[in-house]
């Protein structure tokens, strides 16, 4: 039921087409009311057209360039957008920057924040899981404008039949106050695989890969999935830290999580046990990972994974 209230979606640092999560946020906004977008830098024509496609009638952009600092400039700008647009809710990405922007915005606007949303109902109540997936709760903001950070894959992105270009409104970027400046950025080499946080399939390896992520990558590629890892594997330096899944890494909820050579410690489970289907390959039959597996293979990952990858390629032919 689409109402008429504005639902503001924050699009951080647009750099080309909208990302998957941003398209999901706009789609979700469309189910809750009339989508509007706040972009942290001026959108080009292509982006405006894309935003229009998702039903955004109004796009708010900063009247002057935002500082390249952490969180504070985004929060100051968004506070002014909320004052101008008076939306019924603001949706943000569930990234570090998204959550923390919501956090500071919450203080500026005396508004409640709910993070890690997996669903948002028309009455703006939010479903999320807590205690590392042990509970599912429904939470609601009771004060101010609800600020909600939404996890990837919570909704299937679907562009509507947007009509006409959005109206662009310039908003005073506000005063961010003391902030940490970004003095250096180094992009990581692109893997060509889907983003770990957004992927529908994740194949993850642990200490059991013993330095060789080859079989993990091969199976991930056969399935079009992302590569994940346990902390033991990232600590060993076999793969970049950004691949870590778990309490102190990424929290993923893919349709399929294949765990190979990972024992299934509580901190690992915290990041993956809300996956829809879990497959485990481990040579130790007593490994705790089998307690949460829908399908488990007691066996050597160096045998099982390449065989599975070969079979998938054969069937996809």
């Amino acid at each position, binding site marked *: 039921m689409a109402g008429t209230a504005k639902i503001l979606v924050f699009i951080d640092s647009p750099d080309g087409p909208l990302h998957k999560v941003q398209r999901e946020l706009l789609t979700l906004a469309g189910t809750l009311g009339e989508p509007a977008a706040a972009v942290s830098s001026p959108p080009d024509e292509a982006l405006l057209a894309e935003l229009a496609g998702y039903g955004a009638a109004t796009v708010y952009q900063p009247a002057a360039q935002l500082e390249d600092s952490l969180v504070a400039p985004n929060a100051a700008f968004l506070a002014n957008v909320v004052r101008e647009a008076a939306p019924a809710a603001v949706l943000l990405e569930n990234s570090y920057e998204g959550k*923390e922007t919501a956090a500071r915005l919450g203080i500026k606007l005396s508004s409640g924040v709910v993070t890690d949303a997996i669903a948002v109902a028309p009455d703006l109540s939010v479903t999320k899981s807590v205690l590392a997936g042990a509970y599912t709760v*429904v939470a609601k903001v009771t004060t101010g404008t609800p600020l909600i950070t939404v996890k990837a894959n919570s909704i299937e992105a679907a562009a509507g039949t947007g009509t006409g270009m959005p109206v662009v409104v310039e908003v005073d970027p506000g005063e961010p106050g003391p902030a940490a400046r970004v003095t250096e950025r180094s992009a990581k080499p692109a893997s060509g695989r889907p983003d770990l946080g957004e992927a529908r399939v994740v194949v993850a390896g642990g200490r059991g890969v013993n330095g060789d992520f080859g079989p993990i990558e091969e199976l991930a590629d056969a399935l079009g999935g992302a590569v994940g890892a346990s902390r033991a594997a990232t600590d060993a330096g076999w793969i970049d830290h950004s691949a870590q899944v778990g*309490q102190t890494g990424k929290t993923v909820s893919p349709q399929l999580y294949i765990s190979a050579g990972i024992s299934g410690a509580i901190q690992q489970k915290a990041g993956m046990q809300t996956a829809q289907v879990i*497959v485990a390959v481990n040579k130790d039959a007593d490994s705790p990972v089998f307690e949460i597996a829908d399908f488990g293979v007691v066996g050597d990952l160096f045998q099982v994974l390449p065989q599975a990858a070969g079979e998938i390629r054969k069937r996809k032919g």
Partner: protein
Amino acid sequence: MHKADNSALKIVVLVKYVPDTQFDRHLTANSHTVDRSESILSELDEYAIEAALQLIEARGGAKAGNTVTALTVGPAAAVNAVKKALQLGATDGVHVTDEALAGSDASGTSLVLAAAIRSLGPVDLVLTGMASTDGETSLVPAQLAERLGLAQLTFAASLEVDGGVVTARRDDGQESETVQAQLPALVSVTDQINEPRYPNFKGIIAAKKKKVAELALSDLGLDPGQVGRTGAWTTVLSAEARPPRGQGTIITDEGDAGIKLVDFLASRKLL
């Protein structure tokens, strides 16, 4: 409060008393709050304590006037988190406790933490863990930075303080960033930053002589209505324990498990 030199540092480390993640954790049936029996110092806060201790040790430690104050907000037993920090080497502690605090959300908690930190006078650095292992939202550090008007350097995988400037490296998935700010600042650290120490016998004995100030809301000029369930800006309407995952099919590889795995994926339409 700017520090142009490398004189003594005054650091506050936030510590939280949380249910041990090694056991099953529960929400209470009536109030949907976390059951806090079987609690310990949040393991993610150990990294913040270690980072603070390394910073002051490099500057001559407590003898040279550096301080690390461990601060917690929570029920009576939460003082155990402060005590653990003192055993590890924190120089003193503050425990804010009050009946009215029960059911506080991030906004209420950050309000109390901000008031407690202001009551300590000028501080150079506020250090926190990257999240609490129970709330898991990472909202409090950013909200505290906003309330105190501090630059935030969050999710730091490395940390340096030199000449009044704090520099951190953070890893954001697609890229790695170096960020910098003037002191005073708030820094949250990840488990990549260091290897936390264990308390030793000497530390445990020394901790007994260290002071823990116990403060109530009234000591901080706060009103009970601003915190707890009444002051919260969010509420939990319902909570349901996740149904245990049904027992899956476990097979032992007899040479064709890779094929069977693919059969399973096909049966679930996952190919």
